[in-house]
Each structure stands twice: as C-alpha cells, then as structure tokens.
C-alpha cells in the first residue's frame, strides 16, 4: 500500500476516560502527509482531547494511537505562560528547537509577525500572539502540524489570511495538518477530510458530504448548515478563479 508511507498518525477506536467520564471515545482517523484534516463539533465534544491523543499527551487511553513521526509542531488552544518568565518572541521561536536566525525571520515574515521579533511575549495582543504561535510551528518545518483553533483573537481578514497560510503550509511543507476550528465555513474549502465530533465521531468525510449529512445538520441546526453551504458555494467560485486547488 503506497498510503502507508504517508501515514503520520493512525487512531483506532481511541478514547479517553477520566473521572468516570468519557471525554471522547471511539475515534478512528488517519492523518497523512500533505492532507488537512479538520475536527469540528460543539464545545466539549472532544476536539481538543482528540488532538491531544494524536499528540500522545494522554498516558492512559483506550483503543490505539500510533504515531509515525517525531517532527511535530503544536499550536495549542490556550497557552498560559507564566509571566515570571522574561521571554521575547525570539526566545519563544527557539523554544523546542535550535533555529537559524534566517529561519525565524522567514517564518515570522509569512505569518505577518516579523516586526514583533524583539518584543516581549507579554506585550503581544491575542492576535499577534496567535501569529507568533503559528510562526513558531511553521519554522520547525514539521511532518505533523496540530493546530487547535489557530485563528482565535485574529480579526476577520487576518483569519482568512491565516487559513490561506495553512493551505500554503500544507502544500509547501507537504506536512499533515490536524486542524481544530470553530469557524466552519472558512475552513471547509481548505480541508481534505472533515471529522465531526460530539463525544464520538458523529460523521466524517469530505467537507461537502459532512455538510449534507443529516447528523451534522442536527448537531449544528439547519441554519448554520445553510450558511455553511452558501460559503462552500462561494469558495467553489473563488477556486475556479484561483486555479485548480480543489481538483487534486
């Protein structure tokens, strides 16, 4: 099988049971190189838990999670940094790797945060910090990139830019991306595979098939799904102009 070479993470019926409660269970999915998988679902549906399982952050899980790479970059949802630490963007970029100055500059450049290089991490706004987090992940040139709501705190135009960037990253680095997003409509057109969670895998497949899925519509309400399909439609047009990104 030629796909096994590209396989980065394989989850089989994986779940986490803590304090007499399933955070999420029976999640099966595969993350492959060059593909973007998006996790969607309501609050508390186990999106972050699933991402953390894929990263190997839980000691005791049921089912099976296999990882086939060590080059991993992670953009967590919430990052609380203790401000007793004096730390600049530059130091943060080098947190888990030793990068050349040029690599740092390039990565900050593409996420639009180059001017922040010598700023104190503490002084950044939510959106700026998010861009720095992304830059740090990109600079590591990972095989597997896990992004947990990477656009929170970023304004709308910045948000679209960042999603374009994620697409670009997956194309240039040929890495697998596991993306968690609350913003369904923007994400959809950039994604190869969508997994909709609600404590378990509610449905999964291509973006359009998920959007048309009854279970998905029940979960998010018909209105949301309608908006979604409209956006999906818009994006189809955009791509017609752009080129044949969708066609691959």
């Amino acid at each position: 099988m030629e796909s096994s070479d590209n396989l980065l993470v394989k989850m089989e019926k994986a779940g986490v049971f803590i304090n007499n409660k399933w955070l999420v269970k029976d999640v099966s999915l595969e993350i492959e190189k060059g593909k973007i998988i998006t996790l969607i679902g309501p609050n508390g549906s186990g999106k972050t838990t699933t991402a953390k399982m894929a990263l190997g952050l839980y000691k005791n899980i049921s089912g099976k999670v296999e990882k086939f790479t060590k080059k991993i970059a992670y953009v967590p949802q919430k990052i609380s940094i203790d401000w007793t630490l004096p730390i600049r963007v530059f130091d943060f970029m080098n947190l888990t790797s030793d990068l050349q100055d040029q690599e740092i500059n390039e990565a900050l450049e593409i996420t639009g945060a180059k001017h922040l290089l010598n700023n104190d991490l503490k002084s950044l706004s939510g959106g700026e910090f998010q861009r720095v987090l992304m830059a740090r992940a990109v600079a590591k040139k990972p095989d597997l990139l896990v992004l947990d709501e990477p656009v929170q705190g970023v304004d709308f135009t910045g948000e679209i830019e960042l999603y374009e960037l994620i697409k670009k990253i997956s194309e240039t680095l040929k890495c697998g991306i596991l993306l968690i997003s609350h913003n369904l409509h923007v994400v959809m057109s950039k994604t190869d595979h969508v997994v909709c969670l609600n404590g378990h895998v509610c449905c999964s497949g291509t973006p359009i098939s998920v959007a048309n899925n009854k279970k998905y519509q029940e979960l998010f309400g018909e209105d949301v799904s309608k908006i979604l399909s409209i956006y999906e439609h818009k994006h189809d047009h955009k791509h017609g102009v752009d080129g044949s990104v969708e066609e691959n």
Partner: protein
Amino acid sequence: MFDDFFIRALFVGIGMALVTGPLGCFVVWRRLSFFGDTLAHSALLGITIAYTMEINIALSVFIVSSLVALMLLKLEKTTNLPTDALLGLLAHSSLAVGLVVIGLIATIRFDLMGLLFGDILAVNVNDIIIVWFGGALILLVLKLIYKPLFASTVNYELAEAEGMKPEKVKAIFTLLLAAIIAISIKMVGLLLITGMLILPAAIARNISSNPKGMVIYSVIAGLMSVLIGLFSSLEINTPSGPSIITAGLILFVLSLIKIKRSSQLKS
C-alpha cells in the same frame, strides 16, 4: 592560599553563587520557592542522620532531600491535597522529626544555630572541593537539560507534544535542587538556602528582558551578595550567612529602581 579562613569562605561563597544563580532562575520561573524551602527543612533530618550514622553530611542530606522530593511527587498523585499543603506538611514534619532525633541522641551536642544559619567562616578545604566539584556537576547537568526544562517551564504540553520529556527533566531538576542544598547546607544553613536561590533570581528578574540575560544577572547578583555580605561581616562583625542574604536584599531594593524607571518610560 586557603590558609586564611576568610579566603576559604570567599571561595565557597563564590562557588555557591555560580550554582544558585542559574538554579534559582528555574526555582522562580517554576514557582518552586516553597518547594526549595521544604527540601531545606528536610535537610535537618539528613544532618542528624549523618551524625548518628557517621556518614558524610552532604551525602546524607542529598539522600533525605531526594526522598522527601520523591515522596512529594508521589503524594501529589495519590492524594487530593493541594501541593502547597503537602509541602507544608513535609517541611514541618521533617523539621520536627529532625529535632526529635536530635533530642534522642543526647550524646551529640548540636550547634542548632549553626545548622539553621550555617557558618561559612568555618569551612575547610574539603568543603571548597565539595562545593566546586559538586557545583560544576550540577551546572553541567543543568546545561544538558536546559532546553527541555525551559520549554516545559514555558508550556508543559507544548514541550511534551513536540517530543521533549517534561516529567523526566522535572525529576532531574528536583534532584539538582536536593544536590545544591546538600552541598551548601553547612555554609549558609537551612534557613538561608532558599534565600540564596531566590534573591539573586528575583533581582535579575527586575533588570532583565530575556531568559539567558536573567540567568547571567542572577549569577552576578549572587556573586555581589556574597562579596558584599562577607566583606561587611568582616568589617562590622555581623554573622556572615545572614549578611550575605541582607546584602542580596539591599541589591533587590536597588533593582526596583530600574522597574520604576522602565514603567515610567512606558507611560
């Protein structure tokens, strides 16, 4: 060269400051000051054991402190008590047990003040060797684990997700703390060890903007505390251990001026 007691004290003090500077930064960053205090308290028990069993003080203190540290890690996992309560429990009970043991072995007369505050002027050449070799070893290990330790201090999950071993380096760091307490207990005493760990790092935090800078300033602040403290204790005949810490306190107050300035600049 080591004939003079004052020269010996200087050598030991400088050796200590070189080690407590970088270690202290991590103690402050990881909010471990009370933890260091607990280890220091448990050192008293280590000392009494060393006396009763006639083994090396540093070794005995290191073993007891490490055991207390491991016990804490274990209790954190098995009980629902918050860490600060467990630390208090371990600190005071190990101190109490230490004092009870002293009471039991009436044959040995302890200089309790010496244990609590140390006597840097009474160090011998052996102590200098222990501090410098032990200190070099501690710094070497710290350098080896610096990256993962720092990364997991900034964000535990991020470090773990990206392939570092935060739990392992945490355990190693704990042993390093036990080790510095073991080699310095005789000099500054158990009440002042946390002071030597925290004061230089606190001074450095006030005047630095990046982690490496803070480590360097912390070493400098520690060296200055030792030099100022020792020389003034010689001049005005004050107890040397507490004088070192008092010198550190004065430096800390001075370092506040810098904070005030930079916050004025911002506004």
